[in-house]
């Protein structure tokens, strides 16, 4: 039986010319695990919000949605609340009350259940999700991953038939994200709950899915089992492939046997099947020379730091030299002191021992206005921490409010900054009406107005889809070409492997190893890209998907010529 049916659903937001949804017809079966993907703005969130009346956006609509065979507007608010669970993107915003146990009970209270039933349901959920240890805590003490798990648990407590998740892991670090997705899988497999998920961590979501639905410009362009969808997209040689798992990307670009591989394991087999007998002739890819051999822009010598006098050290004897003009990426797990190091470099925090120099001069010796004009730019992890005005233009202008200069001159600088980040068309928008990636770029434009020579960024790719990441990379490359030194802290291995000039791995408060991304990642065996894990038995130093594809083609061409 079908759980959810969209019948030729079209939708347009008020005052929008283009339809956000165009004739979407879909049937999601009971107990199915469906992943909905597509780039930002393709209409997937809009489609999900149509699955629940209270979340449905205002606008013009055609077609209808059926839940359990009944048109959604005929399903009572009570039934919808109980049977359709919805997890949103931001873990923090969804939490309503101040205590974990109260949050778990919130939905059940709304449904008017009695004390005994709620007690049982809450106990069940706490046990299923492993929440007992933090059951009595204040929600403000939880980590992001725990918060999102709590949101999921408090919805599962109502025992919904259909669980809808709108990019639930985009704000989580990779480990918390896999844990979360594993839990969703467990819910689907063990409880039989129907799952409809949008996600950009497709690497992990695809192998779980029974079904993948691809959307583009408000319409469904592919729909089927994950590997079938891979074949469909390969045939259409669709550029959406850049968002697919590494194995699928390689499959799409390299001639080889079907079926389309999804996981690293499948991809490894796929590559092995290309050279069944002899190993390939070309095993190394040519790598560009290490960049940034100039003098150090940032130099940290034996820095030690802790937050409280009696607390544990967070940064321990850190030595780091970041050459001028380099795009430097710091990777590593949670709580290893990466973000603290960024704060040390920006002067927000000070080491209690050791020295930090910017261009050879100690950071404390700079005056504040010297430090942050034409020298140091810091992009906060959450770009929303910078927006104060009602349009992007006014917000940029606000940055120049303390500077002298004519209006035209300021206007010119604003346009230039907007051009640097590809935002000329969005200057009149309210910052909060922008998508995550656009907000990020607007914040970057604000920082760039100060013409920094060193740009510090804390997880700039968090929550961005691949198209936005590529765009960000383009902007950063342009800045680098202009001589800016870029320092980035990130969990995003794939991004660092592809774009960084050097990578450093943080562990336990200092750098364990540091090298060019190619040498760095081909030297690691766990903490590396999926393309590398897939190909390391055949190639010595293929780190990115492009590396693997290039090497495969070289070898195949050579074989063909021979």
């Amino acid at each position: 039986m079908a759980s959810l049916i969209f019948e030729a659903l079209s939708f347009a937001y008020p005052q929008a010319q283009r339809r956000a949804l165009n004739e979407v017809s879909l049937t999601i079966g009971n107990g199915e695990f469906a992943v909905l993907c597509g780039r930002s703005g393709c209409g997937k969130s809009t489609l999900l919000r149509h699955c629940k009346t209270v979340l449905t956006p205002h606008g013009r609509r055609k077609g209808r949605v059926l839940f359990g065979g009944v048109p959604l507007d005929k399903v009572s608010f009570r039934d919808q609340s109980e049977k359709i669970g919805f997890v949103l993107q931001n873990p923090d915003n969804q939490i309503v009350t101040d205590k974990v146990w109260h949050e778990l009970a919130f939905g059940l209270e709304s449904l008017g259940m009695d004390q005994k039933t709620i007690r049982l349901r809450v106990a069940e959920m706490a046990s299923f999700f492993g929440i007992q240890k933090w059951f009595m805590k204040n929600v403000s003490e939880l980590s992001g991953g725990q918060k999102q798990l709590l949101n999921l648990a408090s919805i599962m407590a109502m025992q919904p038939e259909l669980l809808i998740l709108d990019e639930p892991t985009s704000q989580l670090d990779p480990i918390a994200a896999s844990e979360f997705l594993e839990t969703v899988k467990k819910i689907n497999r063990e409880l039989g709950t129907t799952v409809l998920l949008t996600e950009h961590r497709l690497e992990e979501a695809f192998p779980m899915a029974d079904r993948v639905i691809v959307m583009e410009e408000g319409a469904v362009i592919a729909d089927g089992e994950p590997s079938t969808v891979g074949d469909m997209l390969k045939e259409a040689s669709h550029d959406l492939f850049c968002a697919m798992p590494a194995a699928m990307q390689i499959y799409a670009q390299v001639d080889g046997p079907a079926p389309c591989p999804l996981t690293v394991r499948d991809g490894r087999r796929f590559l092995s099947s290309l050279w069944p007998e002899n190993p390939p002739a070309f095993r190394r890819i040519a790598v560009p020379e290490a960049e940034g051999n100039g003098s150090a822009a940032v130099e940290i010598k034996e820095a030690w730091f802790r937050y409280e006098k009696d607390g544990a050290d967070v940064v321990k004897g850190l030595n780091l030299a970041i050459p001028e003009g380099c795009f430097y990426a710091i990777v590593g797990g949670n709580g290893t002191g990466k973000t603290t190091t960024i704060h040390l470099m920006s002067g927000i925090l000070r080491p209690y021992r050791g020295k930090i120099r910017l261009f050879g001069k100690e950071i404390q010796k700079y005056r504040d206005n010297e430090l942050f004009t034409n020298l140091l730019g810091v992009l906060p992890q959450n770009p929303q921490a910078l927006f104060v005005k009602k349009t992007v233009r006014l917000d940029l202008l606000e940055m120049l409010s303390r500077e002298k200069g004519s209006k035209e001159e300021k206007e010119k600088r604003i346009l230039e900054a907007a051009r640097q980040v590809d935002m000329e068309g969005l200057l009149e928008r309210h910052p909060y009406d922008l998508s995550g990636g656009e907000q990020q770029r607007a914040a970057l434009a604000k920082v760039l107005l100060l013409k920094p020579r060193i740009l510090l960024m804390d997880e700039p790719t968090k929550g961005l889809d691949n198209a936005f990441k590529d765009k960000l990379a383009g902007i950063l490359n342009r800045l680098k070409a202009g001589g800016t030194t870029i320092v980035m802290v990130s969990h995003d291995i794939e991004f660092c492997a592809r774009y960084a000039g050097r990578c450093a791995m943080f562990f336990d408060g200092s750098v364990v190893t540091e090298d060019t991304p190619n040498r760095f990642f081909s030297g690691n065996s766990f903490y590396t890209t999926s393309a590398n894990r897939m190909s390391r038995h055949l190639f010595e130093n293929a780190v990115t998907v492009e590396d693997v594809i290039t090497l495969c083609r070289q070898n195949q061409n050579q074989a063909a010529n021979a």
Partner: protein
Amino acid sequence: MRDAFSRCHPVVNFTYFTAVLLFSMFFMHPVFLGISLAASMVYAIWLNGGRAIRFQFLYMLPMLLLVALINPAFNHEGMTILVYVNDNPITLESIVYGVASAVMFVSVVIWFSCYNAVMTSDKFIYLFGRVIPALSLILSMVLRFVPKFKAQARVISNAQKCIGRDVSNGNLWTRARNGVKILSILVTWALENAIETADSMRSRGYGLKGRTSFSHYRFGQRDKLLLTTLGLLIFCVLAGALLQENSIQYFPYIKINAATARSVLVYTAYFLLCMLPVGLNIWEEWTWRRLYSKL
């Protein structure tokens, strides 16, 4: 220190504090004042340890002296004139009265410090969740938002610092402007993000008829016993108050009832009432020791 009374049912906690606070606010009889002050200090020290001792000496003692001085300075009633200051008589009665009201005020403040340690927000929300469901939800949400907003205010002020707007420099006006900028960024952030909170509430059925209120508190045998004891003691004290056992006249001259067997009974009831949590703790401590000594 672990407090046994805090682990009792919120109804017991709340009844106790309501009674003790009201009695402390209205009984001006020296014996009652003394019992209340002593009990509040002992319980505060039990609850908060060294912090309570510091609080009592650093803040409450000067407060006591100050309040004790206010009264004779403005109140010139009373028969026993001790001295004239600027043609105003300072009387013995008004000094005694000043000390009494100071003791009363200080003991109320110390009782409140105990209340704050015992009556946590979730107990309050539990007690009033049924009577004022919407307001107690608001309360719970505000308590959730405040730490979140405070943390975000810090993030914002760091971000401001990183674009060269060090907020802690400059004259008063500049600082106020910087503060308002931080607040302004915070306001936008809070409001825009809260819409998702509203979505999450409605998505989980908020607004349906017949909302219930869940709590993990259980009313056990011990709570029943404690509540009965509380009721009996409160009854004794109130009966004593009706029989004028707690009354005292300060002006124009101090007149106080002589202690009788009946009044001693009322004093004892009041003492037991005030010391109930401490007594419970001692009882629990003793039970543990006995259990362990058997092992």
